[in-house]
């Protein structure tokens, strides 16, 4: 996993609540056995006006010329709800998103983001509203400093919270499986004490 320390990028405001993972990556694109090839299908039903995905829907925010190259997604509450499919963050990452900002995330989606090196940032609803107004007026670049847990914008700096171990993993690009495999003695000790039925 790549290390995440500081990042500056163009923000695209996706003004919708409860965006589910079916919407992020519809089921017909889940039949791959690799982690690549999902970015082109990101938000498929919104992004394309035909089922085959050959015609861009020009009304969809990601297709607007001023948001081309966006790498920070600003959205609303309960982002990533529904299916546990990690294909959703894979698709977002392959498209180019490194940071997602929302007032809340679904739990499984949030963990999936951290595990692949996308930074999910939770901010209060009133801050989200302000950021929407700002970025809908004119395309913005936000600067994210992970070490300081701060997002800097033209109109202000905003603090966010992150679990300290998750932050450590992101900053250092930790292979979490390798990390846990260093604790096999503790796992073994637990297993040795389990009741027979378990």
């Amino acid at each position, binding site marked *: 996993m790549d290390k995440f320390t500081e990042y500056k990028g163009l923000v695209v405001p996706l003004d*919708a*609540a*409860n965006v*589910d993972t*079916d*919407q992020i990556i*519809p*089921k*017909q694109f*889940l*039949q*791959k*056995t*690799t*982690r690549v090839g999902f970015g082109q299908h990101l938000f498929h*039903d919104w992004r394309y006006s035909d*089922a085959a995905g050959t015609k861009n829907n020009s009304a969809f925010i990601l297709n607007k010329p001023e948001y081309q190259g966006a790498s920070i997604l600003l959205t*609303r*509450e*309960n982002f990533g*709800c*529904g*299916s*546990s*499919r*990690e294909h959703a*963050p894979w698709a977002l990452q392959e498209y180019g998103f490194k940071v997602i900002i929302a007032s*809340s*995330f*679904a*739990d*499984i989606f949030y*963990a*999936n983001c951290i*595990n*692949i090196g996308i930074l999910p940032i939770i901010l209060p609803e009133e801050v989200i509203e302000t950021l929407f107004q700002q970025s809908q007026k004119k395309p913005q670049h936000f600067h994210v400093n992970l070490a300081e847990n701060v997002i800097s914008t033209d109109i202000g700096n905003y603090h966010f919270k992150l*679990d*300290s*171990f*998750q932050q*450590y993993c992101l900053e250092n690009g930790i292979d*979490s*499986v*390798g990390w*846990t*495999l260093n*604790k*096999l003695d*503790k*796992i073994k000790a*637990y*297993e040795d004490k*389990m*009741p*027979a*039925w*378990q």
Partner: protein
Amino acid sequence: MATTLYEKLWQRHIIEEKADETPLIFVDRHLIHEVTSPQAFANLKFHNRSLRHPERTIATMDHNISTRSIEINAAGEGAANQLRTLEKNCKEFGVKLFGMGHKNQGIVHVIGPELGLTLPGTVIVCGDSHTATHGAFGALAFGIGTSEVEHVFATQTLRQTKAKTMKIEVRGQVAPGISAKDIILAIIGKTGSAGATGYVVEYCGEAIECLTMEERMTICNMSIEFGAKAGLIAPDNTTFDYLKGKEYAPKGEIWQQAVNDWQQLKSDDDATFDSYLTLEAKDIKTQVTWGTTPGQVTQVDSTIPAPEDFSDPVERDSCAAALKYMGLTAGTRITDITINKVFIGSCTNSRIEDLRAAAAIAKGQKVAAAVDAIVVPGSYRVKEQAEKEGLAQTFIDAGFEWRLPGCSMCLGMNDDVLTEGDRCASTSNRNFEGRQGRGSRTHLVSPELAAAAAIAGHFVDLTQTQQKNGA
């Protein structure tokens, strides 16, 4: 100190909990399927790692299989590749697989319980968000992503932040004809689609305690639909009676030890929860979703809401967007909504009791001319039982298609998909935009109401019909 059921389960599974690291917990059962496991196996191989406990891992094929044929190729090229990859991986890593046509094959959350793989007091994970189903047994069960699947493969553990606790009490008894699906949809209607994000929910109260295991599974299954990490119901004699003698459940002396242990698994009377919600069972009516999240739900005897009915601006916008997508007008009576597709199936409602309930409505009736209706049993065991009891024939006689087990139209990864503009009464768990097919419209309902809608061609208030018939 008084503790909740969740805290007891958590405490029993902690391997390491220290200040600067996310806690590490042990995973007792890992259920896998063809869609979310291949990349995890691939990474294991890439790092030359082994599977720590193949015997704690069980695989089935369910998500993208055909419901018309047991041939792998019938699922289409992409799906067939995933299914063959699962076969290959299970062979290579020594994982038991219930493949196409195996007597134990079925939807992962249907077979776990019916085989006795799901046990109280265990931690169960699966790369599928409806893993919460297994919480009906007092197991801490939740969905995980593929990176976590890989973590469990290699270590039999997971890193988890401790969740907050929510107690949902359903007091008293529901009226006749009100199903478990109505109870859980009514709960989601109260909390909204993210009302339990960050929480593990425990369901309790008389209306929950008197449910069968299959009904409890329907309740816990949809915990994720209001954001809960997991849903729990304390195990009791109903649980133990269900499990006793199941293929993989403990036997003999170990069974007795297990039951003694499981009897301790309940929240202490004076335990405190972070949040509480109470519903009066008698107030719960038959539920129908009208929007594009499960929280957009109402009673069958009411009307489609208007955006201005919502004070919260985000909810108002969501309502307007949902009505547009669903092709519905505010004020329309639910019973005036016509449907052209019916799906009875999914990990929420495809067990034998669900099929009995739907068949009781369908018996001697005919599916409306304008409606295509399919019934997809949750597993081969359910299928066999339904055929033995004559339920399959009842469905066929009424004009339903009787299919082979699988996830089917719940997510439409196979060819069981709706086309643009189709309106479906579905016993599944998600009414998201495009979930059952691009441009399709899903209304989540109970098996009874799905069957009744198939026959009438529109939603019906079954409690009214039954009253008229003197039932």
